Each structure stands twice: as C-alpha cells, then as structure tokens.
C-alpha cells in the first residue's frame, strides 16, 4: 500500500528504485553546488559560479550539458572492455549502498537484516572499479594512481569496518532501521531526553569512521591516488566526456552515501529522540528524509571543510596512520565497548 493504491511487489520495487535515484542524485548535486562550488569559493575569497541561474545554481546542469557534448575517446593502447566497464562499478556500487539506508519508518528501499554488513561489502567493490580504470588505461600515471588507490582503500577499509563494530555492539543489531530506533529510544545513565545518539558514546568510533571515510573517498588529506601535481589526475587521466562525468558523480554520490551511513550510525538517522515525538506516526515518512538530509549536510560540510583545509599526506605517512594509529585505537575501542556493555 502506497498512498492508498495497491501495488504488486515488482511495482513497489520499481517505485522504490526510482525513489533511490532521487535519493542519490539530490544529495550528490547539493554537495557539489553547496560545498564544491560555493563553500570553497567563499573560503578562498571568491564568488564561485554566478552566471548560470540565480547565484549560479544551474551551473551543475550546464556542466552535465558540457560533458554530454564531448567526444568519447578510448586510447588505442587501452584495454577497451575493462576501460568501458570501470565507471559502472564505481557509480553502481554507490547506488547500491543507498538501498539499505532508511529515510523514515516506512521510507526504506530494502530493510536488510544485515544492513551494515551489506553496506560495508558493497562499498568496497568500488575500489575494484578504481583499480580496473587505472590498469586498463595503459597509462603510467593511471597505473600508479590506481595502485596507490588500491593500497589506500585496503588500508582504510579496516578502520572503517572495526569502527562500526562498536556501534553494532551497542545496538545489538545490524539492521539500520533498528539501529535508528535504538538510538532514538535509548537513554544515557537513565536520562532519555535526547535518546542515545552513538556520537556521544562512540565518539572514538565516530572519529575513526570519519577519517576512514575521508580516505575511502580520496578526499584531500588522502588524495594521493589523484594527486594532481604529480599524477595529472591519477586513474581517471585517460577518461573524457561522459565517462569522466560518471567518475565525478561517483565521487560525490559516495560522499553523500557515506554521510548518510554515518548519520544513521552515529547521529540517529531520520529520527528525532523518541521523547520528543511519536516516531511511528506517518508524518515521519515526510519529515524523516528532511531530518536525514540536514544531518547529511552537516557531515558533508565536515568532509568538505577538511578537504579544503588540510594539506596532502605523503603515501607512507598515509599507510602508517592507518596501520599503526587507527587500527590499534579501533581495536581498543571494541574492547572498551565490550567491557562497558557487559558490565552495565
């Protein structure tokens, strides 16, 4: 039943799939406009795009139009099939991540029991696409960029996974809807006025998660794979036109996806604390996505603020940070959470 109309199962699936496209493209577009075009411009004392539409808000559509008109070039030395296949992996996996994220009591696409596990599994497939793009281009810059990306992604996959374990121990479930309601209905030392957003109890895990996300996205302190001053643009050097645009969309859509996942795991997702309102009311199917969007924008702002503020890590510093700092801390966090959970 959607809006009083009876739909068969496959029709509901198709509707949900269309909904997901909106859920992916809307935050990705907003991220690019608000943060990449405007926020960075103001940080650098300039205006950013102002010509297309009011305050340059149509700039994104103009860019898409530009990329549509560019000639499609596949270098003659490249491995044609892999070269054309790589963008599918990078963009497709981001779309699949959104599938498990709930946006309201009934506003989910698939209520997977192992939601967190599914998200971690699917999001790591995109590194395969990056490696494919780097290898198939038959270009030295692209190859080095792809290998660096692979090394970075495997190093930061672990802190990401281990940080999430703390949240799962506290919630006792891997289903994202249940994690949201556990946070909304929780209490801190008997005080339930603000629920129990895991940001407060799992702040170490939150810090590690956001650092690892920054690295998984290849955003600036960790942008060694596409370091423009030494590798041109790394693994996307040979891509042009529409395929380049797909990589670009993939980058910002995955920033949105990880912001959504972090908002769900640490900030309480679509819900407000259960003491404030009846969370099962139908209104939350309307307000849930908006609350979620606000939380995503806060986390996206954090990601892009860090991106435009810090200088780039060197490759060895980057590996050292993951293996000798983040992984030991996240293991300690798991142990501490375990002991506290069992003791209380």
């Amino acid at each position, binding site marked *: 039943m959607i809006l009083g109309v009876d739909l068969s199962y496959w029709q509901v*699936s*198709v509707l949900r799939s269309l909904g*997901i496209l909106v859920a992916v493209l809307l935050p990705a577009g907003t991220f690019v406009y608000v943060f990449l075009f405007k926020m960075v411009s103001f940080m650098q004392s300039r205006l950013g795009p102002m010509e297309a539409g009011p305050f340059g808000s149509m700039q994104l559509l103009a860019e898409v139009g530009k990329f*549509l*008109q*560019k*000639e*499609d070039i*596949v*270098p*003659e*030395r490249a491995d044609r099939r892999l070269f054309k296949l790589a963008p599918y992996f990078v*963009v*497709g996996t981001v*779309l*699949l991540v959104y*599938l498990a994220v709930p946006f309201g009591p009934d506003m989910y*696409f*698939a209520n*997977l*029991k192992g939601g*967190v596990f*599914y998200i971690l599994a699917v999001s790591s497939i995109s590194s395969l696409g990056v490696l494919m793009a780097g*290898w198939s*281009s*038959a*270009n*030295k*810059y*692209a*190859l080095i960029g792809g290998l660096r990306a692979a090394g970075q992604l*495997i*190093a930061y*996959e*672990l802190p990401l996974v*281990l940080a999430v*374990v703390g949240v*799962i*121990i506290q919630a*006792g479930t891997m289903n994202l809807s249940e994690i949201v309601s556990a946070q909304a209905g929780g209490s801190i030392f008997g005080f339930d006025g603000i629920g129990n957003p895991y940001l407060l109890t799992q702040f170490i895990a939150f810090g590690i998660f956001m650092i690892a996300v920054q690295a998984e996205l290849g955003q600036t302190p960790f942008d060694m794979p596409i370091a423009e001053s030494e590798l*041109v643009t790394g693994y996307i*050097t*040979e891509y042009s*036109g*529409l*395929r380049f645009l*797909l990589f670009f969309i993939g980058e910002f859509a995955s920033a949105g996806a990880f912001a959504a996942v972090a908002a769900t795991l640490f900030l309480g997702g679509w819900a407000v604390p259960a003491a404030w309102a009846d969370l099962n009311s139908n209104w939350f199917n309307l307000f849930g996505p908006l609350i979620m969007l606000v939380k995503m924008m806060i986390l996206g702002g954090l990601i892009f603020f860090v991106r435009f503020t810090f200088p780039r890590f060197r*490759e*060895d510093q980057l*590996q*050292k940070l993951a*293996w*000798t700092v983040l*992984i030991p801390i996240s*293991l300690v966090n*798991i142990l501490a959470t*375990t*002991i506290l*959970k*069992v003791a209380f």
Partner: protein
Amino acid sequence: MSQFLRDYLTVAIFSGITVGLLSGVLALGKLVRPVRPQGAKYLSYESGVDPVGDGWAQSPIRYYVFALLFVLFDVEAVFIFPWAIQLEVYGWFGAIEMIVFIVLLSLGLLYAWRKKVLQWI
C-alpha cells in the same frame, strides 16, 4: 518467498536498473556527441610528450605485506560481527572469549610492526 530473500530480490532488481540506467546515459551521450577521429587523439597522455615504452610499466608494489595483513584482519571482522550482535546473550563468557581473540590478533599486528613490515621502504 521469505522476507529475507525478497529483500535481496530488491537488491537484484535494483542492480539491474542501475546497469540499465548507466547504459542508457552512455547511449544518450552517443546520440549527442561528435565523432571526429584523428590519430593523435588516441595516444596515451604523458604530459604532451609522445608516450615512452609500454603503458603497463613494471613498478614495485610495496604493500603486498599490507594486503596479506588486510586479509587477516578482514577475516577477523567476519567473526566479530555475528559475535557483536549476540554479546548480550553471551555476557561475560562472550566478552572474555573475544578479548582473548582480539589480543591474539593484536600480537600478530605487533609482530608485523616489530618486523618493520609496516614501513614504506
């Protein structure tokens, strides 16, 4: 069909839609964009110089030990997740079991660290 399988059927349907959508966008581009082939356009890009040698140059992969460690810890994560859900059921027994498990793995990491394989040479 059980609810569990239905959820993953949604995943399968949506993967199909994703592939269809991306092919659709790329096919749309084919209608709009110009095609003016010239030999020089298809050379590999090497900062404006003619490409030297083969694109698939041999380069040292310095982090194969990291990759091995990654496999080790990723398998560990597979064990930790189901345990984390059931922790409330197992209580102190489960907690101590997992503490022993994680301490053993940390010793492995510490050994690798002392053997200086966590260094970029």
